[in-house]
């Protein structure tokens, strides 16, 4: 092959490479929306950005009467209060999360709530790669201007539920049914047991798991809850997403001769039960204030400099009102709440299965 034919080909290759490189750079520039959302710059300090539209991304629909419901409701409440637009991306599942979050970032949202612990890694990556601030849950590190996390002191709310359960039980046995080995479930189980023992240390707390990750196992939920009820529990503290359907079936069909009550977690299940009187209460997780503060921080340019907490003190964790909560129970719950706020009641945060079991075994 002669030099005269090789040279033009080389030039063509170099030209093609240059064009491709330029195109890639241009694409990258389009993808990163950092310019108008407060690019952090070298010192990581973000500039404020007006939030006119924000998105929530949840793995399931709000009909779970729990985690997804509370997140979506809180986001809608904040959108209504602040008069900004909400882009609701619910029921996206757990697959291809990073792609989905990236697409949500490209839809003109100024802020994204990645509402699932399973979205943490992807959410943090998308926040950093796109420049759109992302709020994740239970994550271990914030990135100024880009990533912040919501932490829940779940044991505090569960402690209040434990007080209510202890004052309601007639069999002196209460049950905890858990669908999975989940950090929040551990902290809530331990907090609940501590609340029960604070009222009466002689009450027996019966704890059973469906499995390591059986969030949606309704058949298993019914089976396990039925056996816990058979063990004498007349108040069931249940944690479980789809497994909750099984818990409720077990409670509604229990043939015990005495009423069996249910304490729900995170969301409101009163619309999901045939007889609302079986629901003693629910430990509600209220995300609205955390979302509002996150938006305020984005606009002030301080997003990602701190985490947001749900606690009993800031109203992030409350017990749902119910006719089953008598004045006596409400007074005891209020007393416990004051103790948590003023620090006279210390609720141990049990973050492992063994830690939960240790609390129970100690009694």
């Amino acid at each position, binding site marked *: 092959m002669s030099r005269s034919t090789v040279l033009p080909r080389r030039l063509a290759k170099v030209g093609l490479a240059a064009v491709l490189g330029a195109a890639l750079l241009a694409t990258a520039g389009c993808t990163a929306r950092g310019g108008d959302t407060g690019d952090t710059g070298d010192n990581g300090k973000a500039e404020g950005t007006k939030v006119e539209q924000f998105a929530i991304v949840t793995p399931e629909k709000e009909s779970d009467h729990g985690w997804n419901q509370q997140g979506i409701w809180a986001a809608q409440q904040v959108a209504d209060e602040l008069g900004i637009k909400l882009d609701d991306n619910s029921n996206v599942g757990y697959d291809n999360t990073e792609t989905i979050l990236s697409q949500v970032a490209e839809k003109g949202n100024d802020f994204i709530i990645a509402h699932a612990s399973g979205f943490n890694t992807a959410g943090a990556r998308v926040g950093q790669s796109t420049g759109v601030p992302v709020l994740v849950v239970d994550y271990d590190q914030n990135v100024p201007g880009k990533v912040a996390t919501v932490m829940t002191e779940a044991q505090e709310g569960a402690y209040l539920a434990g007080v209510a359960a202890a004052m309601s039980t007639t069999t002196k046995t209460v049950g905890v049914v858990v669908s999975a080995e989940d950090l929040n479930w551990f902290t809530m189980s331990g907090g609940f047991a501590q609340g029960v023992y604070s009222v009466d240390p002689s009450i027996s707390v019966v704890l059973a798991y469906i499995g390591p990750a059986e969030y949606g196992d309704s058949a298993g939920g019914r089976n396990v809850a039925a056996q816990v009820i058979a063990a004498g529990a007349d108040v069931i503290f249940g944690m479980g997403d789809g497994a909750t359907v099984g818990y409720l079936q077990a409670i509604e069909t229990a043939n015990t001769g005495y009423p069996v009550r249910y304490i729900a977690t995170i969301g409101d299940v009163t619309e999901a039960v045939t007889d609302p009187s079986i629901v003693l209460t629910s430990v509600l997780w209220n995300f609205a204030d955390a979302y509002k503060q996150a938006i305020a921080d984005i606009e002030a340019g301080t997003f990602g400099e701190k985490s947001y907490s749900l606690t009993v003190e800031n109203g992030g964790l409350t017990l749902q009102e119910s006719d089953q909560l008598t004045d006596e129970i409400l007074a005891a719950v209020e007393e416990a709440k004051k103790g948590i706020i003023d620090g006279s009641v210390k609720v141990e945060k049990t973050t492992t299965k063994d830690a939960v*079991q240790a609390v129970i075994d100690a009694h």
Partner: protein
Amino acid sequence: MTEAILVAFLIGTIAAGMPLMLAALGETIGEQSGVLNLGIEGIMLIGGYFGFVAVLMTQSFWLGLLVGTLAGVASSLIMLVLSVWLGLNQIVVGIAITLAGSGITSVLHTQNYGSTNPRLGLDTPWKIPFLSDIPVVGPSIFSQPGMFTVALLIAAAVAWWLHKTNPGLRLRAAGQKPASLDAAGGSVLRTRSLAVLAGGAFSGLGGAYLALLSTGAFTPFMTHGLGYIAIVVTMLARGRISWVVVASLVYGASVAVGTAIQLTNINLPNDVIKMLPFIIVMITLIVFARSAYIPPALAVPYTRGAR
């Protein structure tokens, strides 16, 4: 362990074991005829969903079980046409049925009942006179919904039919030496077709039992691999229905014992508890695998005259 816990344990054993037994009965019929149906998981979900809808609409558990059975038959038509008639790969078709059944029922449930998650309550139990008064076993085994007794009778009937009748012999011949059945004047295609439909019926009934009687509700993907366990049980049972019944109840017991262990404060990792049924099935397989018998023509499409 108190009497109440023992009663709950036995009820849990039956609740977990009976859907498996029905599904494994269906798979046994199919495999004995030479058809490997890996779609059993999806068929169970279809049977469970449509049975659930029928009970919601009519309040009749028996009608729900019937609808679940018919839904199982309808969904097995895919296997019938694609694998038995057209000779497509049974494994591929079976996996497709499982994926389709899982997806379709999930979409339908989410669309129609996702916001309400209705439950069905309890079917009226058949209390067997005198026996239902016996402590522990009375309120558990002898106070079950009528379908429990019917399912055991069905298992006995299938055992007799499979091994003591000419149609049963033809069915097994279709799985062992289909050319011989063909030469003797039997129709391999017809035999296998009926076996696939019967297998679908039992799988659908198993799914309906799981949703209507074991759970009292339907939730997406609620079988959690039970269909695949049914295939293992079928392989293990080698066509013996009594083994299907025993293996299914052993599985059910190993599921229920997980909670019982926790209630006795024995601190085992949840992973171990969850694996227990599978470990027991695997140990049994290891012990008996050498004598496991698979019909020689299993999963092999039959073509007359082909060598």
